[in-house]
């Protein structure tokens, strides 16, 4: 202890209590980094997307090139994943399958995002009769099985990608609309929404600036979990012959073809099935990780 300890406190000393601000994003990322599985999931998703986009460019084969002399060849230096019963290179077909499957996954998530968020948000904001009618429409659509849509659409269009996009488009945003509506209904009662109204913000400004940022967490989580769901649906539809048609490849088509010769040429089943499983796991891990990272309860502990 010396005499300086008793000098009066200067104003600048009083300001010491200061925590550098943290963005929600940064905090979320910090949480994510602690979660090993989520990081693996993220890595798998990124690698799969990059491979699907650019992989086929580096292959000398095309997904439709047939070479009957090489039919059912086992994996080798020339054909890493082997070939199928028509002599097509399986690696290229799996990569093309990734394109189709991932594009369907992302398309489903975009539909989810735009239609689901806006529809649910609008219903909740409008309230009253509008809300009731809009949500009854959702209930009705929800009650029709998706297989029925696809079969009906087959009658109108030829089987193919368009069919699957349409079927997913009709059915996938329903869940999101419900989740967003629930969120916004609870946010509507918040004081800061009334505060925003009290200084003259319009309904749309409130929706964009105050409500949607507050439900980003549930939206992102629903989104990442709906992607594997969509991919799986596509695989299932293609597997039973309602999806992509030859010579286009998707993981569903490839597993469906592979299963015919499962005993003699198991690699024809194993490679596409492995790609499918890996991607699914990646998205699932990522979705779980995001849910933990964006949960406000967790943030409080971290912040």
């Amino acid at each position: 202890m010396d005499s300086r300890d008793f000098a009066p406190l200067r104003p600048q000393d009083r300001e010491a209590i200061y925590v550098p601000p943290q963005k929600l994003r940064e905090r979320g990322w910090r949480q994510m980094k602690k979660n090993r599985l989520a990081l693996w999931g993220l890595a798998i998703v990124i690698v799969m997307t990059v491979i699907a986009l650019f992989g086929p460019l580096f292959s000398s084969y095309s997904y439709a090139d047939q070479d009957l002399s090489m039919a059912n060849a086992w994996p080798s230096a020339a054909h890493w994943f082997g070939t199928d019963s028509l002599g097509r290179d399986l690696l290229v077909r799996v990569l093309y399958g990734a394109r189709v499957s991932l594009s369907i996954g992302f398309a489903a998530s975009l539909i989810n995002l735009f239609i689901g968020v806006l529809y649910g948000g609008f219903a909740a904001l409008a309230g009253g009769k509008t809300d009731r009618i809009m949500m009854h429409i959702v209930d009705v659509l929800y009650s029709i099985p998706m297989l029925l849509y696809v079969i009906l659409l087959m009658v109108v269009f030829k089987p193919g990608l368009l069919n699957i996009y349409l079927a997913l488009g009709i059915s996938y945003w329903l869940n999101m609309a419900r989740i967003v509506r629930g969120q916004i209904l609870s946010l509507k009662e918040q004081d800061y929404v009334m505060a925003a109204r009290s200084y003259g913000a319009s309904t749309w400004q409130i929706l964009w600036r105050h409500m949607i940022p507050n439900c980003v967490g549930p939206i992102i989580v629903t989104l990442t979990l709906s992607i594997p769901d969509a991919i799986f649906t596509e695989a299932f539809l293609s597997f039973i012959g309602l999806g992509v048609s030859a010579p286009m490849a998707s993981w569903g088509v490839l597993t469906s073809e592979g299963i015919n010769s499962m005993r003699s040429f198991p690699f024809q089943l194993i490679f596409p099935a492995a790609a499918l499983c890996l991607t699914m796991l990646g998205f699932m891990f990522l979705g779980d990780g995001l849910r933990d990272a964006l949960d406000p309860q967790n943030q409080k502990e971290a912040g």
Partner: protein
Amino acid sequence: MATLLDVQNLSISFRTYRGILAATHDVTLHVDAGETVGIVGESGCGKSVTAHAVMRLLPAATTIYSSGTITWDGEAIQGYTEKEMNHLRGREMAMVFQDPMTALNPVLSIGSQIREGLTLHQHLSRSDADQEAAALLREVGITSPERRLHQYPHELSGGMRQRCLIAMALACSPRLLFADEPTTALDVTTEAQVLQLLRSLQAERQMAVVLISHNLGVIAQMCRRVYVMYAGCVVEEGPVEAIFDEPAHPYTQGLLASLPDPAHKDKILTGIAGQAPDLFHMPTGCRFYPRCRQAMQICKRQVPPYYTTGTGHRAACWLLCPEREECAWH
């Protein structure tokens, strides 16, 4: 002084699952430019509802404006569209909310919330709005405002947040500020600071303030005139001194008797017996009669009109009826 806000016979009810709920009945009040007016009463007496009704912040789907007029600066604003109201809200009148913990959006920085009003009404550019926001924060007594702009609500204390809310409300220099129990969620020392801040801002900016509170001490400190509300009605109104010195309505008398007084430790605190009426089953006649110790036969049957008392304020009570003086029972 010119009358800024004039509310005449405003009755508001809400549609609820249990039926129609009468929130306010025949509320008449006015606010002159630049004055501070208090509204005092128990929870659920319609103080906030009245303020929210003026700014039209009540849920449109379930609110019924049964009667009355709201005049702003000489113009009836009840017929205004939502767009016209948005023009008034924030720029002409603003509100400071009760709970600073919930009235700030947790995911937006302080700066972006203060900027919102500025960009909406004054169309300022981002950097101009930033400067203006920092100036506002300095005005409400927040140190190093440039740094605070980037912080989020959860990083600030309750008193700081309430100051931020005041800064948001002041952003576009409103002519009337509703302060809806601005200090209820704060501890006493912070409360004193915030009240002092409101008072100095009011004086500097020549802005009218409607202070809503259940705290009589706060009202006495801050206001020139006061409206006492009970169960949706204004029961007494007038200059603060007159009402505090000679309360005419038994409810006001009861409120004052229940105030703790640090100077007189021995004072017996008397509450008002009974409880506020169920808004679904309002008593006929005077709404206070079931709890009133001086209730008379007429109180049960007939709503009392306003009588002017000797000290020049008005109260709605049959005790003040001149005919009562001549009556044999007295």
